[in-house]
């Protein structure tokens, strides 16, 4: 501890952030039990709760930022005396801890409030005497830049989605149910975000999964929707194998602890200092990557995410674009020391995370080209952007990854809600080719916000996506002068390709929906304010969010105050990350921004916009109703046609999973096992039964009647007197078997004891 004069009180909000998920959980229960009886069918409870949660989150964010900004004066928090547990899971231990270790608490260190959920005796040191040091399974709140950022993003987008939904799903047959699950989802997500232990993280992780299941399958009367819900859940379960196994490995590696803090501390220590060996960390990281692949839609477990678009559009915006799907990215950030060491992120050229992220970002982007459903395009774009985030973390650009998570949440939610607004107008269709076109004039506000969202996604300066994407490319450390944590050539190339792809497919979407001539029937019209307001707010954020992390070089070049540079980094990046000392004594560094790279990347974006723009401009000049060239463009280029076929079949992954793996398991494999069960195992039992029955009959006939049967008769007789039922049941036969068994048992016992009775 530092001197007492430097000590300040931990702001109350940091120890009471549990209120935020708590409010949402209470809202879930209230809507479930009373929602249907209320005038607004429960929506009012949900909205009130989310506004309260957002207000608290904003306050927490504000407090966090002011603490950081005034950090130079108060460098440390007072160790608080143990407070009483607010939620009744045992006694509280409020313990602000330092990431870096001995020198006291550093600015931006996490504030961990943990309660004992339950405790068990140490699995490997079961000595009852050692019970005092038993590992407690903790539950609590972890407040640092990363979780504060997520609190803000989740509650903000959830609030807008709540408001939007009152219009979008109004009159739905399960309106109350819908709002109940929105509340439960928000609660679970925040519960996960605030995790202090890996167990808490697993619980939250699965609970958001189940909410996603319920909301994808919201209209479960139609089989495709429930199929999509099942697919989402089961694919995530596959990844969860990795989550469970990875967390188990870390539990034992960290000396029987579920504490994220302890795991992280031990991950960066070397073997001699009691740390975890690199091999173990590698195994754990790879297992956890499987979980990231399923939850955050990384190749090859991404296939559920586009299907998840079967759910209501606001849900797609909230869960399947902005918040839940980043859970995997968030988990990487939370356990960053584990991955950092496990995958040797420092100083290498490639690792599993960077490669998977890179592959996903290109693979998803390509798939977006062949979709005719606007939501599917956005879904594949989400896959692609999630790949960007994972890739960023994989190349060691922690802040870039988190920053992209932050900016992406706004522009992707904006795009999804915009797509919902379009569909709301175009008789609930999402088919760009059949039912859209020319909507620019008919829905000007939706058009404007959608344009902003698209350009932000494409990464055109000065919109939000540009800043975060640029930072990721810089972070790869390949461009001259950037000096990242390694030199990741392949991810860098993937990243550049995706920058071009993203701009191209979004231009295609814009043309198909907003330009040309309207191809649907009935006249579309602009949506009401409850849909427009969220769009405007999100478009606003998509414009300005990027300014939160401007490079200092840029800030000074345009003459802004110096303190405006890299604010996001200051606020969000845990102090601990920058003090990582790798086992190889290589610390964590920030890559240096490069003007030339920014220009080149933006050039790529502009060129690909221009190419697609001309393509459609020419097409529409020929035929205003056309959506593609029909003059045999494809047939002239066989390579392109093959590529197109592979893409429309989604790389045949669905075929592999649904038909081959799932089909075989529930088809022939299950049938064979069951056949074995009935015709082998059961046949043995049945024939044993009939053989002993025959033997019994023979015995009974000849000499059994007298002695043993009588003894059993007397006991069974008591039961038989309770009703005539016994006689109808061939009870004689049963008694016969019984007596036979007991007789045999006694016989065996005698033989057994005599044969083995020699004691040793």
């Amino acid at each position, binding site marked *: 501890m530092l001197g007492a004069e430097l000590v300040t009180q931990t702001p109350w909000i940091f120890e009471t952030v549990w209120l935020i998920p708590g409010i949402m959980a209470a809202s879930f229960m209230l809507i479930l039990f009373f929602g249907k009886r209320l005038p607004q069918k429960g929506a009012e409870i949900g909205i009130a709760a989310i506004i309260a949660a957002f207000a608290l989150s904003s306050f927490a964010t504000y407090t966090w930022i002011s603490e950081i900004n005034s950090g130079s004066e108060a460098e440390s928090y007072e160790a608080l005396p143990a407070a009483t547990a607010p939620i009744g899971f045992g006694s509280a231990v409020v313990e602000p801890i330092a990431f870096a270790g001995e020198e006291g608490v550093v600015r931006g260190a996490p504030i961990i409030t943990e309660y004992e959920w339950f405790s068990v005796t140490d699995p490997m040191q079961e000595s009852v005497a050692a019970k005092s040091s038993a590992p407690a399974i903790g539950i609590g709140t972890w407040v640092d830049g990363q979780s504060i950022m997520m609190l803000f993003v989740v509650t903000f987008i959830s609030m807008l989605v709540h408001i939007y939904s009152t219009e979008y799903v109004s009159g739905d047959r399960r309106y109350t149910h819908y709002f109940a699950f929105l509340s439960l989802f928000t609660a679970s997500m925040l519960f996960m975000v605030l995790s202090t232990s890996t167990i808490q993280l697993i619980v939250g992780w699965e609970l958001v999964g189940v909410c996603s299941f319920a909301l994808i399958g919201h209209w479960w009367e139609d089989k495709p929707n429930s199929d999509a819900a099942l697919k989402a859940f089961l694919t995530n379960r596959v990844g969860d194998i990795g989550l469970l196994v990875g967390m*188990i490995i870390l539990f034992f590696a960290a000396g029987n602890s579920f504490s994220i803090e302890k795991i992280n501390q031990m991950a960066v220590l070397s073997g001699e200092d009691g740390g975890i060996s690199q091999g173990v960390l590698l195994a754990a990281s790879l297992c956890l990557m499987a979980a990231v692949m399923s939850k955050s839609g990384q190749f090859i477990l991404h296939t559920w995410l586009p299907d998840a678009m079967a759910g209501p559009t606001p849900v797609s915006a909230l869960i399947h674009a902005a918040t839940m799907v980043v859970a995997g990215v968030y988990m990487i950030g939370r356990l960053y020391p584990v991955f950092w060491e496990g995958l040797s992120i420092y100083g290498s050229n490639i690792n599993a995370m960077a490669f998977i992220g890179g592959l996903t970002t290109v693979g998803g982007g390509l798939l977006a080209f062949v979709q005719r459903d606007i939501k599917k395009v956005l879904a594949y774009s989400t896959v692609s952007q999630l790949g960007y985030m994972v890739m960023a973390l994989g190349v060691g650009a922690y802040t870039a990854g988190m920053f992209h998570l932050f900016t992406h949440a706004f522009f992707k939610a904006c795009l999804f809600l915009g797509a919902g607004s379009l569909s709301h107008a175009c008789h609930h269709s999402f088919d760009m080719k059949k039912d859209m076109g020319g909507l620019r004039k008919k829905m000007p506000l939706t058009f404007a916000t959608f344009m902003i969202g698209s350009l932000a996604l494409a990464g055109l300066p000065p919109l939000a996506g540009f800043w975060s994407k640029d930072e990721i490319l810089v972070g790869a450390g390949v461009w001259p002068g950037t000096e990242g944590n390694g030199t990741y050539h392949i991810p860098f190339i993937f990243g550049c390709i995706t920058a071009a792809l993203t701009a191209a497919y979004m231009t295609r979407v814009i043309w198909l929906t907003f330009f040309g001539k309207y191809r649907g029937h009935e006249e579309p019209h602009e949506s009401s304010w409850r849909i427009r307001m969220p769009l405007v707010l999100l478009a606003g954020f998509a414009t300005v969010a990027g300014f939160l992390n401007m490079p200092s070089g840029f800030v000074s070049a345009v003459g802004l105050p110096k303190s405006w540079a890299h604010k996001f980094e200051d606020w969000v990046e845990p102090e601990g990350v920058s003090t990582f000392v790798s086992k190889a004594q290589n610390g964590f560094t920030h890559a240096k921004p490069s003007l030339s790279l920014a220009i080149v990347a933006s050039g790529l974006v502009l060129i690909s916009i221009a190419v697609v723009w001309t393509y459609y401009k020419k097409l529409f000049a020929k035929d205003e109703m056309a959506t593609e060239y029909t003059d045999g463009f494809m047939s002239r280029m066989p390579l392109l046609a093959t590529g197109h076929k592979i893409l429309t079949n989604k790389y045949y992954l669905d075929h592999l999973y649904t038909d081959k793996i799932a089909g075989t398991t529930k088809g022939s494999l299950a049938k064979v096992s069951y056949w074995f*069960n009935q015709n082998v195992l059961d046949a043995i039992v049945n024939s044993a039964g009939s053989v002993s029955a025959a033997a019994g009959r023979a015995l009974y006939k000849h000499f059994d009647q007298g002695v043993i049967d009588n003894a059993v008769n007397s006991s069974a007789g008591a039961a038989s007197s309770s009703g005539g039922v016994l006689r109808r049941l061939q009870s004689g036969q049963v008694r016969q078997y019984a007596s036979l068994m007991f007789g045999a048992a006694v016989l065996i016992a005698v033989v057994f004891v005599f044969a083995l009775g020699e004691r040793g």
Partner: protein
Amino acid sequence: MTDFLNDWGITLMVFTPLVAAFAMMLLPGKPDIIHKQVALGASTLTAVWGALLLFNFDYDSASVMQFGVDRSWIDVVNARYDVGIDGISLPLIALTLFVVPLVILYSWNHIPKPGNAKAFLILTLILHTGMLGTFVARDLVLFFVFFEVVLLPMYFMIGVWGGEQRLYAAIKFFLYTLFGSALMLVSFLALYWLTGSETFNMAQLAELVSTSDIALGTQVLIFGGMFMGFGIKVPMFPFHTWLPDAHTQAPTQGSVILAAVLLKLGTYGFIRIALPILPDAAVEWAPWIGLLAVIGIIYGALGCLAQTDMKRLIAFSSVAHMGYVMLGISTLTSFGISAAIFGMVAHGLITGMLFFIAGSVKDRYHTLEISRLGGLLVQAPRMGWILGFTTMASLGLPGLAGFWGEFPAILAAYNPGGGLSQPLFRVYMVVAAIGTVLAAAYLLWLLQRTAFGNPSEEFADNPEITDASKLEYISWVPFLIMIVVLGFVPGLIFDVADAPVSEMAEVWVVK
């Protein structure tokens, strides 16, 4: 009060149902309502005795047998009336006390064909005594008697009130279990003679085995006898084939009790008798038990995927779920065995609840053929969401009870005790984790085919298909509440079971 409970508490709890059953025998068969009231009253009174015991239980010394009574019983064979409760038996006693009154309540207007509430409820009460007795017995002979007492009522329940093939199922259940019991008895007797013990007291036998010089090979054989007795009851692969038949044919109440409590007699036997008395033999057996457990997990799940009957599917799921319990036990670690105890309670609540729903679906649709069902959520929304909730619990969703039986068991397999092979158990761990995917698959697939979609034409306008009645609701809601409560406050069981389990597991700690 405490003195009274110490002397009489357990006895009153165990025998109240039996006394009520005798009283009911003397009453005339009609009207039914008297029998229902007596049975419900008796099981409630039993629960009250149990609650008093639970309140007065000293949770700080959960590893000590409490409310113990030790009286002479059958002197000729040195069998004694020796009972007590500790942290291992307490959760299971609580489960039994919780389930039986609700089953009787459900029976209020669900007496299965061919009727006769009197006989049906008498059997339920005898079962009740048998189950409670098994969980409190400290004497092997007493344990054996209670273990067998359970058989007959269940045999009649299946054989008289069951489905089409009730006779086959009932006899199979009876004989199969009896076969195991016979071998178990052999083991008990062998232990008694080989140790030269003067009683059948479990603790004393354990003590004697640890100080005597019985060859390890002999111990392994004795363990084998117990393994057959308990393993068939669990049931472990490949001795499980009686279970799907018994469950499918049994009346709803029978299935619920069978799933909720009877199967636990087997796993309880392992934890209470086989492991502590023969800890060295347990180390020899553990890899095989673990192997059969993980085979059961995968095999049971595949069996589920092949089912076309809802009830048979739920029955097969028990094979998979009990696999997790047995995996936990086979790790020979305190966390694994605690997880097993948790898994026993959780499985009892969840699968019991699933059988309730299956029974009520059958009442309405008169079929459980999955391909003919569908749209339960449309026709009976409450039943539909209860089914959805319970399947989620059953597939081990964190935040609900099922998770705490599964995850810690998988976790414990990473580092087994007793010097067991780590690589082997890590393979088991991964296989068990894969089993969680299959569990989700068959359960959600069941949910999709029965609850989602629109009702088939066959049943679309059938007036018989109504939502859950008030009575069904009352008997189900406590199950749902407990599933959530245990999911969020797992300490309720872990805290109680931890002390006795870790004391027991101390012998297997790798030094």
